């Protein structure tokens, strides 16, 4: 009984461990008023991290969904929850655009 509980626990730990190892952090640099890379690929569960190297603040915004503030020389992260392609832009400088193709987990 104890043995079975332990092995169940081990399977659980293994599963959690694997899924954590699989999730990646994808970095998007903001420099000179542009997202780099402007187009990126990820999967559900991955984290997108925007790193702002500019001297003005930016956002990574999807109207009605997210509005990530990326202050001067700071970063902001978001875990991707849904598959599909998302187009985002900077609310302060709408000429800055990026997209992420999110594959299912």
């Amino acid at each position: 009984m104890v043995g079975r509980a332990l092995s169940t626990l081990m399977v659980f730990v293994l599963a959690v461990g694997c899924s954590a190892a699989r999730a990646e952090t994808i970095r998007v640099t903001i420099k000179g008023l542009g997202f780099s890379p402007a187009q990126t690929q990820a999967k559900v569960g991955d984290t997108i991290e925007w790193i702002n190297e500019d001297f003005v603040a930016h956002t990574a915004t999807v109207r009605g969904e997210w509005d990530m503030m990326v202050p001067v020389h700071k970063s902001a992260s978001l875990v991707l929850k849904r598959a599909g392609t998302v187009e985002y832009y900077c609310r302060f400088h709408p000429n800055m655009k990026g997209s992420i193709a999110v594959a299912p987990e």
Partner: protein
Amino acid sequence: MSIRLGTAVAVACLISGVAAAQTAKPTDPQIAHIAYTAGQIDIDAAKQATSKATNKDVKAFAQDMERDHTAVNQQALALVKKLNVTPEDNDTSKSLSKQATDERAKLAKLSGAAFDKAYVDNEVAYHKAVDAALENTLIPSATNPELKSLLQTGLKIFKGHLEHAEHLAATLK
């Protein structure tokens, strides 16, 4: 519409007129002064709008303008200090300031939705004019590569502001 266009054309002529009037390109110290003055004008307009605007998006836009133009002007000040350049006042800077003072006085007489619309319309016209001046006169005339680079970054920021202002203007119709 004709007033907005008139303002834009006047400012564009004014800034690009530097070269024509002096039959020489503006010098780096003059360019630095013009760029800084143009930024300060938008900061002053933003301060007025922050206190007078009633629409929350217009108020937020004004705050964005104040923050960005202050950041650009801080970079400009740091650069002229580093390069040991003293910005040089000139007729273009003086005319820009005078025109801006007149515009602020006009806006001061308005309130509510009329103020919001006039401010945003003027921001569209002003950014169009400043972007054109940067692209056609100030950037090509700048000789110091760091000054040129800062003006180019400024232009990208201000093109963003123009698009932002145009989106906002469309919602105020």
